């Protein structure tokens, strides 16, 4: 026996160590750590290492900052000039985008559409990695003492990074989106197709569960869908680089993340996401026509106007918005034109409407204020008479939900808040709309 043990001592020790570790593995697989729970040995190890990592990384940062701040000023003047030029360009873009955003917020408010906003973030420094290719977790220098909790989103200005999986007092662990155990609700920006972005062992990210009969083109942007309840909707995720038919009727869509996940230094941890209605108070007047205009197809806006400023008979055939008209297209009478900046006016009682931009079905020309419909109106939708000013001349601000519902019911119930801009009710004004031509609306 002694001879046997002595002869195979090395192999026996090897087998014993391997057996112990396999048993330990089996125990971990059978009883995995609960969500957010950390094994004590890991807590000790990471708590021991974190101060060293912080010290090294921060001293490196300090040296780098010192160098870049005091020594490396070459080229700053030129860079400053370029940045100013870029800022100018961006200001112009900003003006256009702001206007679009205002309009989008108005519509969202009208539709009672709740949006998620990144309310507060904490900047954190990446101080470590897992050190292996099989696991891609990152370590941040902020932990529970800084208010970080598991399942918080981690982002950069260029795109999402991952989510917090474990939190220690002074550090936390991030599971990046390219880890094989990661999954993010994502959508294609243009086609709005939704899927799940998953990582792989080799660090590649693929968008899964998109049917193979869908058309996805390389180059399309991928954004968060908000379906995972971790990332707010609309954050950039990456870009499609290749699309191949996958197994099980799904496409295999390869995505390159927007964030440089292999070169991360500073990240933002989203500590609070607020879900609220878009604030449309300061976005100008809300008009029933705006709501409906968003729901209807747009139409050509060119209309011939004669010398007197009146629309030619044949030119204003689309917007048969009248309270007295009969036989019009069911939608023709609805006040659903896209808001236009044309000088649409409502003529005085009995006059003809001048409507340079009345090609939309149920256009609502006029700047004269609210046009009351006659209760006896026949043949058209009640909203047909909601002739709101199309040039913001009569700002009537109404609560979004109210406006939405009123638009669908009847416009006369809208409550003007600025009496100055509202014209006095005119008993004949309901007839001062464009006379019906009987022509169907041009959709």
């Amino acid at each position, binding site marked *: 026996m002694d001879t046997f043990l002595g002869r195979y*001592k*090395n192999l026996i*020790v*090897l087998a014993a*160590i*391997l057996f112990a*570790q*396999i048993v*330990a*593995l*089996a125990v*971990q*697989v059978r009883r995995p*750590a609960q969500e957010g729970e*950390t*094994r004590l*040995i*890991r807590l000790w*190890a*990471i708590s021991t*290492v974190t101060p*060293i*990592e912080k010290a*090294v*990384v921060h001293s*490196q940062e300090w040296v780098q900052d010192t160098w870049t701040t005091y020594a490396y000023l070459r080229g700053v003047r030129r860079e400053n000039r370029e940045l100013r030029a870029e800022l100018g360009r961006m200001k112009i873009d900003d003006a256009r985008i702001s206007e679009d955003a205002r309009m989008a917020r108005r519509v969202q408010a009208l539709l009672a559409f709740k949006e998620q906003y990144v309310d507060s973030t904490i900047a954190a420094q*990446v*101080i*470590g*990695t*897992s*050190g*292996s*290719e*099989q*696991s*891609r*977790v*990152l*370590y941040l220098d902020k932990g529970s003492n800084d208010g970080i909790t598991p399942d918080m989103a981690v982002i950069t200005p260029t795109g999402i990074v991952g989510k917090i*999986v*474990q939190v220690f007092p002074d550090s936390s*662990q991030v*599971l990046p989106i390219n*880890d*094989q*155990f990661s999954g993010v609700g994502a959508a294609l920006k243009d086609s709005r197709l939704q899927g799940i972005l998953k990582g*792989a*062992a*080799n660090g590649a990210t693929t968008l899964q569960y998109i049917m193979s009969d869908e058309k996805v083109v390389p180059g399309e942007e991928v954004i968060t869908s908000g379906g995972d309840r971790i990332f707010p909707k609309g954050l950039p995720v990456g870009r499609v680089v290749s699309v191949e038919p996958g197994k099980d009727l799904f496409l295999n869509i390869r995505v390159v993340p927007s964030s440089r996940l*292999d*070169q*991360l*230094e500073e990240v933002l941890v989203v500590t609070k996401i607020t879900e609220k209605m878009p604030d449309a108070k300061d976005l100008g007047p809300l008009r029933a026509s705006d709501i409906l205009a968003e729901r209807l197809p747009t139409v050509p806006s060119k209309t011939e106007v004669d010398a007197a400023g009146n629309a030619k008979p044949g030119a204003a055939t689309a917007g048969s918005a009248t309270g007295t008209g009969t036989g019009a297209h069911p939608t023709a009478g609805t006040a659903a034109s896209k808001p236009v900046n044309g000088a649409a006016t409502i003529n005085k009682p009995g006059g003809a409407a001048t409507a340079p931009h009345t090609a939309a079905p149920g256009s609502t020309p006029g700047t004269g204020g609210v046009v009351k419909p006659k209760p006896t109106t026949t043949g058209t939708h009640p909203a047909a008479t909601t002739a709101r000013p199309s040039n913001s001349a009569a700002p009537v601000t109404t609560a979004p939900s109210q406006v939405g519902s009123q638009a669908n019911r009847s416009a006369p119930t809208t409550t003007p808040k600025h009496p100055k801009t509202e014209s006095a009710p005119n008993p004949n004004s309901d007839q001062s709309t464009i006379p019906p031509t009987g022509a169907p609306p041009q959709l």
Partner: protein
Amino acid sequence: MSSRVMPFRGSLTSREQVSVYEFSWAAIIFVPLIAVLIQIFIPVRVRFLPIIDLPFLVTIFFATARRNPISGCITGCLIGLTQDLFAGPSHPLGMYGIALTVIGYLASSLGLKIDVENPGSRFLLTYAFFVIHQGVYYGVAHGLLREGLQWSWSHVAISALANAVIGIFVFKFLDRFKQR
């Protein structure tokens, strides 16, 4: 002229070459720890470093230098478990432990048989052991834990080459800690 073929008598090295080295306790404790630390936070700055497996190289170095399979097993086991600690919550403790235990055993067993001081043999040893290391890890992950790892020969070959090249310099540096 005729040449005599000498029968193989167990060792390919001369007696002088199979000398066993000792290390100070400080070196035994701190060299693996520093290797793991470097492995953890250097990839934040250096993009390609995850390919280089410093704890693996240190395991081979200690195992081949001490030429004791039992100490090789234990060294590999401890370094691997330390590496496991930092690999994230979804990575069970023991995966690297098992892989490096096997490598420690094999390296120390082979160290008894062949010359491991030569850069050429170190290169080949490291290359071969890296492939074995990846194979054992893949076997554990795929066979025991049913993880969906993908085996890529090209990736393993390139990683093994990189580790073998870096290993020559790492071993040369670590030779300073040897004590006869």
